[in-house]
């Protein structure tokens, strides 16, 4: 669903955008998995192509097999974890869900009425090329202090940023009206 699609109505709040993070999130772990796989294949081939001491050959064979298994499981663990990375924007809050299976589960909720500043950050040529980036929110936590939180791998960050900025005055007005 894109930002210009009609909002979905519920009793309490309107969901404006549900999107998964940009596919570039898969790339770093895929490269690491491929490297481990190549290392494993290299070790396995090493044991059958050159003359090694019997003990060393056995150790290298087991190491190669373990590396191949590690690369395989790391890739799929990453895939099944990263596909859960979701960004939801409603007219009251921004929700960012991120899970790493058996390791961590993050659910960040940022109420729009607390957001002081929204910024879109793109670092590097690749992020421009693939049209992804960070969206950062700054919220005051004291008279002179503020906290900054960022959502990584946001697809079309300019459009998403504009959508959130467009919601800020309405959210503030609603908060004042309801006395929050």
């Amino acid at each position, binding site marked *: *669903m894109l930002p210009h699609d009609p909002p*979905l*109505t*519920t009793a309490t*709040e309107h*969901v404006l955008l*549900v999107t998964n993070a940009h596919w570039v999130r898969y790339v770093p772990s895929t490269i690491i998995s491929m490297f481990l796989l190549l290392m494993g294949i290299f070790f396995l081939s090493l*044991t*059958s192509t*050159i*003359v*090694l001491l*019997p*003990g060393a*050959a*056995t150790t*290298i*064979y*087991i190491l190669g*097999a*373990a590396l*191949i*298994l590690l690369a*395989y*499981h790391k890739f*799929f*663990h990453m*895939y*099944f974890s990263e*596909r*859960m990375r*979701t960004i*939801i924007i*409603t007219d009251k809050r921004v929700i960012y*869900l991120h*899970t790493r*299976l*058996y390791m961590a*589960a993050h659910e960040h909720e940022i109420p729009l009425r607390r957001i002081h500043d929204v910024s879109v950050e793109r670092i590097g040529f690749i992020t421009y090329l693939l049209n992804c980036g960070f969206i950062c929110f700054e919220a005051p936590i004291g008279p002179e202090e503020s906290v900054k939180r960022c959502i990584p791998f946001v697809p079309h960050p300019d459009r998403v940023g504009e959508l959130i900025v467009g919601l800020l005055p309405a959210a503030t007005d609603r908060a004042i009206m309801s006395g929050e």
Partner: protein
Amino acid sequence: MARNEHRFVDDIRRKAYSENLPVRSFMSLELALLSAVALSSLVFAVAIVIESRRSERVRHAFLRSLGAPITIMLHGWILRIVYLIGSLALAVLFTILPYVLRILSLSDAPA
């Protein structure tokens, strides 16, 4: 002449089997270790698939509570099945292959 050639080939094969083929030198403990690693990786794969499905259901329930659309991705299920089949294949490969190679190398070894 032919006997000399036979002896030469036998020498090469003996050398190859004694020095170059790692599975021939595998001991039972090493084979057991390899089997344990391969089988535990299969258990890990099953656990990952179950946890992935559970997380997905939790996320869908959350989205449903917000009234957001839920799209069931077919490629998620396909990849889960591919992952399980691949894990099984790797477990079988790394569990059985050393035994098979060892048996073959012993039965095929030169006298």
